[in-house]
Each structure stands twice: as structure tokens, then as C-alpha cells.
């Protein structure tokens, strides 16, 4: 092997190959980021259009729209309740089980309610509900709307003088937001209760009244306001991203699967980013 060479290439060729690799990686990364920013722009524009329709069509065709909203609440809330309860209870056990292992060693088990309050109410509750709704109802929304777009049903609505945003998007937006809010509340209650149950089984000397009063003391009234805003915000975001990917551009039937994957990926990224944003709000309080 010649001097200064790596894996059989002379130094100059090797450096050129590395530079090309770096450039191609930077191009790929840059392309992905530009695409993501463009999508964000599209989702924001879609959100503004939806807001406009919400304002201008208020009360219009309520006999048609209201049942559609309830249908979405049923799908994004009620039908997902067993799954959310199961996962929340499991997570409550996991959080308190892990916390106990450490707090017991340093004799700080009285901090358990505070840990539960912070972790479950502020973080896990809303995120868990949002991710479950995204994975179960969000995917269904992209497929439904994508199929309606590909088969020409959206144009058929326009022909009948029905605004597709009003008929297809608004009920989903309201339904998903309400669904995430309700599931968050139920999920938090289930996680806190299962957490207490685990602590009780581990012979931690905390009475239920004491546990819940410590829990309440660890939370600020603003926590509840922010919790409501956060879960509603995550619900609106999920509905917008999934409806955008289902409706925003003409789709062929074979593109629906890819649109669904894109919607879920971007939905997860946006939910996590929003969660991080709220963390900053919590730190500022």
C-alpha cells in the first residue's frame, strides 16, 4: 500500500471521496430540511384557511356538520379510551416503579407524588394521548381523505357547493382536539391511580389522601390551563397535518401509503417540538 493511503486509495483521491461524501450528505440533509420547512409552510397556510372557514362558516349547515363532529369524537376519543387507559396505567407503574427504586435509596420517597405530578401531568399524559390519536385516528384520516381526493369525491363536494374544508376538515379538527383533551384527562387519572397502587403495594407509607394532596400541592393552577392548551394544541396540530397530507394536493391511489407515512412522521416531529416548546413555558413559570 503506498505511503499516505487509506484502503488502497492515494491520499488525494481519498480526500476527494470524503469531500464528495460530505457534500452529498449535506445535500441530502439540506434537501430534507428544505422539504420539511416547505411542508410546515403548507400546514400553516392550510391552518389559516381552516381558521378562515371556521370563522366564515360558523353555524352554517349545523345539522350536517354536528353529527360529523360527534362521529370524530367517538372515533378519536371514546373508541381509543381502553387503549389509553391500559397504556397510562402501565406507564404509571413504570414511572413510579423506577422512581421508587432511586428515592428509597436516599430516603426521599415522600417526593413520589411530586415526581408523578410533574412527569405524568406535564409530559407523559398529553404526549401519550396525542401519539395514540396520531397513530390510530390520524392514519385513518389521511387514508380517508387521500382516497376521497384520488377518487374525485372532493371535486364532487365542490360541485354540490359544499366547501371541502368545512365538510371534511372542520369536523375532524374539532373531533381530534376534543378527543386528545378527553384522553389526556382520563390517561392522567389512570396513570396517577396506578402509580399510587404500585406505591401502596411496595409498602410506601403514604395514605391516598396524603398522596393526592401532595400531588395537588405539586401542581400550579396554571398547570391545568397549560395542560388544556397543550392537549388541544397537539390535537389541532395532528388534525391539520393529517388533513393536509390527505387533501392538499392531487393524489393517485398508490401515493396514499406514502402520504400516510409522511403525515405520521411529521406529526410525531411536530408533537415533540410542541412539547419542547411547552417545556420552555413551564421553565419560565
Amino acid at each position, binding site marked *: 500500500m503506498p505511503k499516505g493511503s487509506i484502503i488502497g486509495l492515494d491520499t488525494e483521491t481519498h480526500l476527494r471521496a470524503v469531500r464528495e461524501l460530505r457534500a452529498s450528505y449535506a445535500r441530502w440533509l439540506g434537501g430534507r430540511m428544505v422539504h420539511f420547512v416547505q411542508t410546515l409552510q403548507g400546514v400553516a397556510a392550510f391552518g389559516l384557511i381552516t381558521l378562515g372557514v371556521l370563522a366564515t362558516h360558523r353555524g352554517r*349547515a349545523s345539522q350536517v356538520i354536528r353529527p360529523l363532529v360527534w362521529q370524530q369524537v367517538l372515533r378519536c376519543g371514546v373508541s381509543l379510551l381502553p387503549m389509553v387507559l391500559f397504556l397510562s396505567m402501565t406507564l404509571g407503574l413504570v414511572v413510579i416503579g423506577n422512581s421508587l427504586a432511586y428515592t428509597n435509596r436516599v430516603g426521599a420517597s415522600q417526593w413520589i407524588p411530586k415526581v408523578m405530578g410533574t412527569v405524568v401531568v406535564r409530559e407523559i399524559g398529553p404526549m401519550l394521548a396525542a401519539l395514540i390519536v396520531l397513530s390510530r385516528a390520524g392514519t385513518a384520516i389521511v387514508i380517508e381523505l387521500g382516497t376521497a381526493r384520488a377518487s374525485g*369525491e372532493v371535486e364532487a363536494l365542490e360541485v354540490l357547493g*359544499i366547501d371541502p374544508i368545512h365538510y371534511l376538515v372542520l369536523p375532524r379538527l374539532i373531533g381530534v382536539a376534543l378527543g386528545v383533551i378527553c384522553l389526556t384527562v382520563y390517561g392522567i387519572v389512570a396513570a396517577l391511580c396506578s402509580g399510587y397502587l404500585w406505591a401502596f403495594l411496595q409498602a410506601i407509607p403514604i395514605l391516598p389522601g396524603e398522596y393526592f394532596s401532595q400531588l395537588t400541592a405539586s401542581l400550579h393552577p396554571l398547570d391545568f390551563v397549560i395542560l388544556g392548551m397543550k392537549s388541544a394544541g397537539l390535537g389541532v396540530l395532528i388534525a391539520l397535518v393529517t388533513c393536509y397530507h390527505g387533501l392538499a394536493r392531487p393524489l393517485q391511489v398508490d401515493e396514499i401509503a406514502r402520504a400516510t407515512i409522511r403525515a405520521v412522521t411529521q406529526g410525531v416531529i411536530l408533537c415533540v417540538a410542541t412539547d419542547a416548546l411547552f417545556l420552555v413555558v413551564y421553565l419560565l413559570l
Partner: protein
Amino acid sequence: MTGVDVASPRTADGISLRDVEWRIEPREFWVVGGLLSSGKTDLCLTAAGALPPARGSLRLFGEEVGGGFTQGQVNQRLRVGLVQDGGLLFRHLNVAENIALPLQYHHDATLEDVLPRLSAWLESTGLHDRALQPAGSVGRNWAQRAGLARACILEPELLVLDNPLTGLDPRHARWWLDTLGLLWRGHPLVSHRPMTLVVTCDDFRPWIAPGRRYALLRGRRFEPLSPTLDPGELPRLLLDEAP
């Protein structure tokens, strides 16, 4: 339509027909023939105000068509009905809900409120027994009829039909020709008011008798045919187009 380029999401340049000059007078019965991918569907969507033209001026009942959903624009659009190829029913609704949807939406009514009118259309189209079936489970013959009932339930003045006889069995095709003739003269369910009709087709033969004006789509152009043309010549015009 004046100097209209008909837009299309399916062609490479986004245009399916160029420089369309077309004026439809009240009570006319237009038959527009064209082979597959000649732009019939796009022309129907444009004529119904659902697909904005890529260029040119589109006026419905003397007013420029806007793409929005303000009350004025919606009212203008509702004066035109469109029956799409295969009926294009909404799959999340059953047949009756599909037909009632425009009436419910624009009059903010429940299904019970619109039941008398709905029943009359179900009876007239022979869909009574299939009213509660999911839209996706009815055959093309019946889905097409449901599409007609849905388009007519708001009593439009102009009815555009995209290839209404495609894929129908001869009995149903007969029913369509009779019903369209009745609509053109004034159907009882549209207050006996004669309708203006535009039909697209890929075979002129069934339309020689009912049609009054004819046009051809070829080479991405809309060619109105002379009223003095012998209707017997029409099928040959499309055959000459075939490869």
C-alpha cells in the same frame, strides 16, 4: 366560455383543451363527443364551475365564476348540476344520505326534514329498495341514478352529465334516455321546468335522437358542429378519430 383553456391535473402541461369558445343557450340539449382522454371530464367540471379554467373567461348565467364558497358564489354554482361518471357517490354515506346531502347542507335540515323530496326522487329513480345500502355496495347502474338524483334534488337550471351511459346495461340506458328527455321537457320533480342539458359521450349513436346541438373534442380542441350537419354522420366523426 371565452378563450378558455380547460385545466387538467392529468396531463403533462396541465391543459386538456385549448381555446374553448362555447355558449350554451337556455333549453338547449348539447351532446359533446370525444374519445378516451379527450378532456370530457375536465370540460364537464369546468362547465359546472368546479374546475377553474387555466386561462380565459368562464361565465355562468352571465356572471364570472369565482372559485370560492361565499354565499353568492355557491348560489351561482347551484344553478348547475353535474352528474359525474359512475355517479361518484360519497362512500361514507348510504344512497339516501348521498341524495339528500346537498339539500340538507344548503337548507340546514335533518334527513327527516327532507324526507318527502328524498322519497320522491328515490321513487322516481327506482332506488327505494337500495336507499339504506352503503354507497360503495351498489352497482354502477344504480350509483349512476343516485348521482342524477343528487344533482337534481336542488333543481338546477343547467344539468351537465359526464358520459352517463358508460357501463350501463341496455335497460338502464333506455331509462336514462327517457329520463333525460323528460328533464329536458320539464320533469314533475323539478317543477315541470325545462332543463338545459349538456351530455358528453364516446359514442354518438344513442344521442342522435335526443340531442339538438353537437360538438366534438379532438386534437385538444372543442369543435361545435354545424346545426345543419346530418346527425347520421355523427358516429363516423368519432370513428375517424380512432387510431
